[in-house]
C-alpha cells in the first residue's frame, strides 16, 4: 500500500524506445490515452479510504422482479426478429405436415381431435421445450450467464422472462396449426378460444422443463439432445391417438406434461365439452409449470455461481 516513489513519472512516458530500427505504429497510438494522471486522484484517495473504514458502502439498487422480468421478456422477444422467425416457420410447417399425413390414416371423431390438438401443442413443445433448452444450454456453456449473474437481477426474472418470451413465440404457430387442423378435419372452431389458456399453461410447463434441462445439462450437446428427445416424445405421444398405443407407452404419455395440454384442448372439440376435465388438465399443466420453473430458477442459481 506504500505510495511508490516513481509515481510522478507521467503515464506512458516510460514506454519510449531507445533506438529503434523497426517502426511499430501501434506503440504511438496508445501513448496519449490517459488524460487524468495517476497523481490527480491521489490526494482524494486517503480521505475516501477513511470513510469506507467507518462501515460498508451503500449498495446500488436491486432490480425488482417485475420490471426486470419485463426487461428480459422484451429483450428475448426482440431476438425473434433476428434469429427465430425461420424456426417458427419450421415449427408450424412441421405440425401442418403431420396433420396432412395423418389425414390419410384418421377419419374424424376422437382420433381427429387428438391429432389436431397434439399437432397444435407440438408447436409449443418445439419452441418452448426444444429451443429454450438449446438456448440456455449454449448460454451456460459460452459463459453468457455471467452477464446476468453480475447484474442485481432476481434469478426468477431471467428464467421467467426467457420462458415467457419463448412461450409467446409459439402463439402464431399454434393458432395457425389449430385453425388449419379444424378446417382439414372438419372440427368446430367454437371453442378455439381455449388456446388462450392452453398456450400459456402448456407453455409454462414445457418452457420450464426446457429451461431446467438446458441449465442442468453438463454440456450444451446434452441440452440439445434432451430438448430434441422431449420434443420427439411430445410428437409421438401427443399426436398419435392414445387408443392405439400399448399400455406402457400410455403410461409414459401420462407422465409427459404436454399430454395434459393436448387432452384439455382435444376435449373442447366435443359437442358438449366437460369443462371440469378441461380445467383439471389445465391445472396439471399449471402445477407442472410452477414446479419446473422453480427447478429452472434453482438450476440458474446453481449455474451462475460455479
Amino acid at each position, binding site marked *: 500500500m506504500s505510495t511508490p516513489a516513481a509515481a510522478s513519472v507521467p*503515464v506512458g512516458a516510460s514506454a519510449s524506445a531507445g533506438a529503434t*530500427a*523497426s517502426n511499430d505504429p*501501434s506503440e504511438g497510438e*496508445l501513448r496519449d490515452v490517459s*488524460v487524468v494522471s495517476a497523481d490527480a486522484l491521489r490526494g482524494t484517495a486517503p480521505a475516501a*479510504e477513511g470513510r469506507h473504514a467507518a462501515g460498508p458502502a451503500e449498495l446500488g439498487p436491486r*432490480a425488482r422482479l417485475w420490471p426486470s422480468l419485463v426487461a428480459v421478456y422484451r429483450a428475448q422477444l426482440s431476438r425473434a426478429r433476428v434469429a427465430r422467425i425461420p424456426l417458427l416457420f419450421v415449427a408450424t410447417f412441421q405440425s401442418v405436415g403431420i396433420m396432412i399425413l395423418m389425414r390419410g390414416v384418421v377419419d374424424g371423431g376422437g382420433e381427429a381431435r387428438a391429432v389436431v390438438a397434439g399437432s397444435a401443442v407440438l408447436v409449443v413443445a418445439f419452441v418452448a421445450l426444444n429451443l429454450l433448452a438449446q438456448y440456455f444450454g449454449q448460454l451456460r456453456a459460452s459463459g453468457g450467464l455471467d*452477464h446476468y449473474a453480475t447484474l442485481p437481477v432476481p434469478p426468477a426474472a431471467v428464467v421467467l422472462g426467457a420462458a415467457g418470451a419463448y412461450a409467446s413465440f409459439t402463439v402464431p404457430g399454434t393458432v395457425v396449426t389449430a385453425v388449419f387442423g379444424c378446417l382439414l378435419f372438419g372440427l368446430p372452431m367454437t371453442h378455439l378460444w381455449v388456446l388462450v389458456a392452453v398456450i400459456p399453461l402448456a407453455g409454462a410447463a414445457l418452457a420450464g422443463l426446457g429451461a431446467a434441462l438446458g441449465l442442468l445439462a453438463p454440456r450444451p450437446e446434452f441440452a440439445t439432445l434432451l430438448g430434441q428427445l422431449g420434443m420427439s416424445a411430445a410428437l409421438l405421444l401427443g399426436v398419435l391417438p392414445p387408443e392405439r398405443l400399448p399400455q406402457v407407452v400410455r403410461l409414459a404419455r401420462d407422465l409427459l406434461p404436454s399430454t395434459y395440454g393436448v387432452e384439455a384442448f382435444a376435449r373442447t372439440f366435443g359437442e358438449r365439452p366437460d369443462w371440469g376435465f378441461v380445467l383439471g388438465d389445465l391445472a396439471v399443466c399449471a402445477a407442472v409449470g410452477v414446479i419446473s420453473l422453480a427447478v429452472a430458477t434453482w438450476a440458474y442459481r446453481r449455474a451462475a*455461481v460455479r
Partner: protein
Amino acid sequence: MCVVRALTKTYPAQRGRRGVPATPEVRATDDVTLDIRRGEIFGLLGPNGAGKSTLVRQLTGLMRPDAGRVEILGHDIVRHPERAARILAYLGQESSALDELTVSLAAETTGRLRGLEVRQARAERDAVLEELGLTGLAGRPLKKLSGGQRRLACFAAALVGERPLLVLDEPTTGMDPVARRAVWSAVDRRRAEHGTTVLLVTHNVIEAETVLDRVAVLDRGRVIACDTPSGLKEKVAGEVRVELVWRESAPLNVPEVAALRDRVVESGRRWTLRLAPEEARAVVATVTGGAAFAALDDFTLATPSLEDVYLALGGAVRQGLVRA
C-alpha cells in the same frame, strides 16, 4: 476499496476420457493478496492461462474461492457474492447474452437489470452511446457488428447504471485505435467525475504501461510483482532489450554471433537478448558492421517493457503476452 487476502482456488484433477487426456490438479489462484485503491486503474497482467480471469471471477462473485477473503467497499464478497452485482459493473470476455439484441436494447436492458427506471435507463443509454460514438449503430444487432464494435457495445452496456467499480476483462480486444481511445476517455471521465475505480485484465503490455496506475503481474496463479509500471521496470533498469531479425537464419559462422547463441530467446528468425547497455552497444556494432550485417533483416534496441519484467521475475510462459 478492494481488499484481497490469501485468495486460493484449485481446479480438481480431471480423469482422462476417450480423446481427452487427464489433467492434474491446477492451482488457478494461489494465495493472492492485493489492495486496490479508490480511483485508480489497477491492472492484472499475465499471459493467457495465468489465472487472471479466474481471479476476476472470484472478485465479482461469479466463483467461490476455496480459501481467502475478498472485500469490496467494506462488503464481504465471499460470504455475500450477490452483493458484488450491486457494487460493480463487469465486462466479461463473452457477449453471447447480448449477441442477438440491438446495441440500443442491449444497453437499455442492462441498465434496467441494474435497477434503473425505464426513463433513466433510456437517458443513460443515449448518453453512453453518444459518448462512445455508437449512436449510428444503435439499431444494429451486436451479432452483425465487427469484433471491435461488438466489444465497444458491450462496454457501453457495462457503463449504463453508474457503479463505483468497473471490472473490465480485456475490454479493447479487437478494437481499432479510435474505439480504444473512446474507451479510455470514457474511463477517465468517470474517474475524474466520480472517482470510479477500474480493475483491468490485460495481456497487452503496451496497454498496461500506458493506462495503468498500478499493475499486478500474474504467473500460474501467483502474483509475482505488484507496483506502478515504472516501478516494476526499475527492477530491470540495468538491462536493454535487443531484438535481431535475420533474413533467413543467424550467421553462426560469425564468431561474435555464435557466442550470443546460448543467451538468446529464439523465435523463428527473431532473436531476443537482454543485455547490459554497454554489451548491447557492442552487439549492435557487431551486427550492423561486418559480415553479420548481410544476414540481418531488422533490429530493435529498446528500454525494457513489462514483458521483460515478467520474464525477469521468472515468468514461465514465453509467448503469452502481446505488444499491440
